[in-house]
């Protein structure tokens, strides 16, 4: 397998459900920090990045249904319309599940270009719903998909390392 690098060796290690749930909760928490003004525009959507990570690496465990459920919680947390985040995250998960084999083959740089498209789609759907309901658009909102894309690489490395750590601890 010429494409596989060192990271793809770790992919097959098991992940506990608790770890997945904790990572999603942590992402919801990070989204919920008191961001304001320009920082709010630049805030990456942590939940989207974490969900996409799990959809890519564990598509059998975290799929479209779970992403939809997390989206509903995000809707409640943000007081947005019911289904707005859910719809966006459904598409995101679909992208992740469909492309998961390709993404697993790629290295981080190639992955980043691929996930950018998925994030743009996710953000566009969210903005489209808002535009339909309220009738105006805030273009700076799309800065978020750039920062989310930039977050992909560090977050993948971190989660990968944490999974590794848990594995080692479990073995002891």
């Amino acid at each position, binding site marked *: 397998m010429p494409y596989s690098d060192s990271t793809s060796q770790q992919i*097959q290690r098991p992940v506990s459900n608790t770890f997945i749930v904790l990572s999603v*909760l942590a992402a*919801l*928490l*990070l*989204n*919920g*920090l*008191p*961001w*304001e003004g320009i920082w*709010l*525009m630049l*805030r990456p959507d942590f939940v989207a990045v974490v969900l996409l990570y799990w959809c890519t690496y564990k*598509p*059998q465990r975290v*799929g*479209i*249904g779970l992403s*939809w459920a997390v*989206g*509903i*919680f995000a809707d*409640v*947390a*943000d*007081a*947005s*319309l*019911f*289904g*707005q985040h*859910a*719809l966006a995250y*459904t*598409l995101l998960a*679909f992208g992740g*599940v*469909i492309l998961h*084999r390709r993404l697993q083959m790629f290295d981080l740089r190639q992955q980043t270009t691929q996930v950018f498209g998925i994030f743009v789609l996710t953000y566009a759907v969210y903005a489209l*719903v*808002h535009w339909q*309901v*309220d009738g*105006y658009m*805030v273009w*700076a*909102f799309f800065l*978020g998909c750039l920062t989310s894309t930039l977050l992909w690489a560090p977050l993948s490395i971190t989660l990968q390392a944490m999974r590794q750590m848990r594995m080692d601890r479990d073995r002891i």
Partner: protein
Amino acid sequence: MIDNTQSFQFFNRGPSPAVRLVFFAVLSLLLLFVDARYRYLESTRNALSVLVSPIQRLATLPGMLWQQAGDFLTMQRSLVEDNQALHQQHERDAAQLSQLQALQQENQQLRNLLALAQRSEFTAQLAEIVYAERDVFKRRVLINKGANDNVRIGQVVMDDIGIVGQITRVYPWLSAVTLITEKDHAVPVQVLRNGLRTIVFGAGDTSQLSLRYMPVSSDIQIGDMLVTSGIDGVYPPGIPVARVERIERDPAYPFARITCLPVAGVDSHRHLLILSGLPELPEPPMEQAVAAKPDKGKSKRKVPETH
């Protein structure tokens, strides 16, 4: 490598991703439609918000700790100075208040003589901002008083200077305040100088307000104070809202472009007042009653679009 054998379908994995996508997308769209159109889902939202609120509370912790650390490290000298300034302010205010009381008495007497309806007093409830809404599209804050403190949708929120916004969603322990700078949020106002009635709208993307449907020839000047007119039955009369900042009179357009700045610290304060006990206006005549009933804030938005 079991993960990679999906294409063979040896095992039953349930519906394919495309089917799931369509199912959940349609479900989301249905929810969106129901929520945007009918608002049937408020109780579900309340129930789920109980589950989410621990995370939200946890998320506000760092900010609160930061603030508390700041409070703890405040210099004694600055406290003394603050205290002195507040004392002076209080003395000035007390003098003004006694004057105001005399004026109030006089006003009441005059109104009695003229047989006009009395202006009713309103009571206020102090609330603290828990956090600002983390949605780029909205200008909202969440405050720490909810349905348990008898907060209701539509109540007006102000700070010590002027109108800040209106309560648009109530949870058991929280409520959401839509700021007057929210896009298309309308407040009926009067120019303090000459009593000219108009409506001020939020701009949405900046902390500004605008007067949209003022004829080019209308008598309005830079620096004019806009106060609530009170004829809408939502906002109590006479509370400052905004000050006119810039006027562009272009004869090519029927309306002047007028930009205003809110007088209240819409983006800055932590403590807000929720006004309650507003007077009940007499019922409008029957044919208009139906149109005026659902969500006063919303029906007001529709008014200018008919121009």
